[in-house]
């Protein structure tokens, strides 16, 4: 019975690795920390693990769908993640000390994903809220196009730390098809950068209150100085939210019931 286990994952196929992790969790009910060294491309790490007070440390480059369906654990990645980390995450926290690929935070319905660097295209796609759960995706640097595509709930915060809050961001098709949830972007957004169904709303005091906790928490996770934290908290944000909860209503046949 151990509290900490370390695995050298060199050359271990993803399926075996994930089976091994599940066995370890089963055999060690008091387990608090699994460290995976030399991770290189193994997919689905943390997939479906339902356990609180467990930290999974990943040293290396995990493959796609990291922490998929996960409920509870904290995952820390020291490296870049591939596509869709946090896919359908239920509870827990994914901290990526690097960048991540397309569709980061895909279909999250709870928990949080913090990315220190940039994320690929379609991040936050299909994020949704579920009962009392609100998923949160915080992006340190830039995001690819289609951020928050078909978003149905939750919060995306794109900090664009490297640029000034007076600059226009580069991404376009922001919030295409969004019908719930909210996207906060540090910096300016032109109407032409919005996707269909997305709207720019006034960034109010309650919005700042809503994101303050996450910005503070994000800065603590990545050890950012108070100076950076204050800069982020005192920045201008653009709030993007849905035009309506059913933007494509007109495209469907009328309800004939």
């Amino acid at each position: 019975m151990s509290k900490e286990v370390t695995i050298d994952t060199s050359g271990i196929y993803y399926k075996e690795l994930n089976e091994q992790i599940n066995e370890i969790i089963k055999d060690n009910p008091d387990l608090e920390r699994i460290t995976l060294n030399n991770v290189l491309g193994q997919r689905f790490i943390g997939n479906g693990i339902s356990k609180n007070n467990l930290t999974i440390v990943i040293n290396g480059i995990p493959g796609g769908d990291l922490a998929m369906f996960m409920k509870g654990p904290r995952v820390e990645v020291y490296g870049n993640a591939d596509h869709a980390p946090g896919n359908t995450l239920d509870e827990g926290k994914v901290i990526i000390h690097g960048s991540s690929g397309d569709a980061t935070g895909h279909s999250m319905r709870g928990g949080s994903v913090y990315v220190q660097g940039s994320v690929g295209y379609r991040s936050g796609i299909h994020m949704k809220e579920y009962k009392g759960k609100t998923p949160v995706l915080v992006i340190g640097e830039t995001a690819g196009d289609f951020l928050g595509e078909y978003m149905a709930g939750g919060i995306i915060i794109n900090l664009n730390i490297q640029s000034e809050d007076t600059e226009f961001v580069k991404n376009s098709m922001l919030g295409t098809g969004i019908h719930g949830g909210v996207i906060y972007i540090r910096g300016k957004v032109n109407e032409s950068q919005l996707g269909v169904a997305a709207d720019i709303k006034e960034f109010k005091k309650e919005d700042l209150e809503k994101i303050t906790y996450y910005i503070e928490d994000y800065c603590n996770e990545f050890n950012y100085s108070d100076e950076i934290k204050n800069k982020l908290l005192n920045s201008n944000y653009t709030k993007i939210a849905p035009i309506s909860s059913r933007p494509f209503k007109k495209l469907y046949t009328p309800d004939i019931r």
Partner: protein
Amino acid sequence: MCGIIGFMSKKGRLIKGDKIAKALDSLRDRGNGEGSGYVGYGIYPEYADKYAIHVFIDNTVDFPQIKSKVEEILQRYGIIVKDEEIPVDDSVIKKEHISWRFFYEMDEKYAEIEEDKIVEMVIEINSKIDGAFIFSSGKNLGVFKAAAWPDEVAKYFKLDTYEGYMWLSHARYPTNTKGWWGGAHPFNLLGWSVVHNGEITSYGTNKRYVESFGYECNLLTDTEVVAYLFDLLSRKHKLPIEYVIGALAPRFWKDIDNMDDEKRKICEAIRMTYAGAAMNGPFAIVIGTNQGLVFSNGEVDNKNDMLGFTDRIKLRPLVAAEKDDLLFISSEEAAIRLICPELDRVWMPDAGKMTIARFEE
């Protein structure tokens, strides 16, 4: 799905084929064992100025007849300097086709239209000779592919016995058409080699477009047309490479409207002139290029380059990385790190824009 990885030494350093095979094998889950392939540039230094023609010939009793039909067409325009079976280890996979290579020299009288003649012969052999098709026809390069897993194809063709300065590879997950040897990537014509992850949903339009210029699509898969589009736009029409990419993955009209006058006129002209070449659907493509690539600033590259690009709305992944003289393009960063753990720079290229590796002079 589908997995892609390619790399190039910008200094022309020769690297053994086992490296690319190792990297591609790590992407095996992006394929399904129904097609894997490699292309190495610079692998035939002894015959560097000859066309290296790789042909699959059916492994049946008709083999000698089919082979002599191929020879007959080749000998019409030039001479076969050397020919032999490509060495294979047939304990790895079933030898469905015999892979034959011809080192070929075109008759001097065709010097002006040499490449056109090669294209013509490739089309003729692939469409007219039953049981034979050419899958590689460039100089100092060679494609090796089969309907099997990445490691099997590498072992079968003894990839570790070749050295090249640029390698492209692909693990296939066939979706719309069956997996077979000819359907595996890369697709090659002259110096162009194409590997592709995704679907060209505009295939019908693109096929009809290249067919109107005499190309014939015989390989039962969408990617083939990309090689012909490149040959047509870049080699035949001599479009600068930036405009070729602009034709295949055109800028959106709404973006064109916001451009300055000169750029807008060029983009409009390309969209209108090359409407039949515009590719739709999800794709990430990496291409080994022909000699004589032209750039819009007037520069001409006389060596092979490697370039990668995705569809405009980025429905497929593409990662690029650099380490010293090496430039990598892949579907996943992990595949790059497997063969080069320490990288100077890793980035995800913007959708619809090309990333290019060129030789350093």
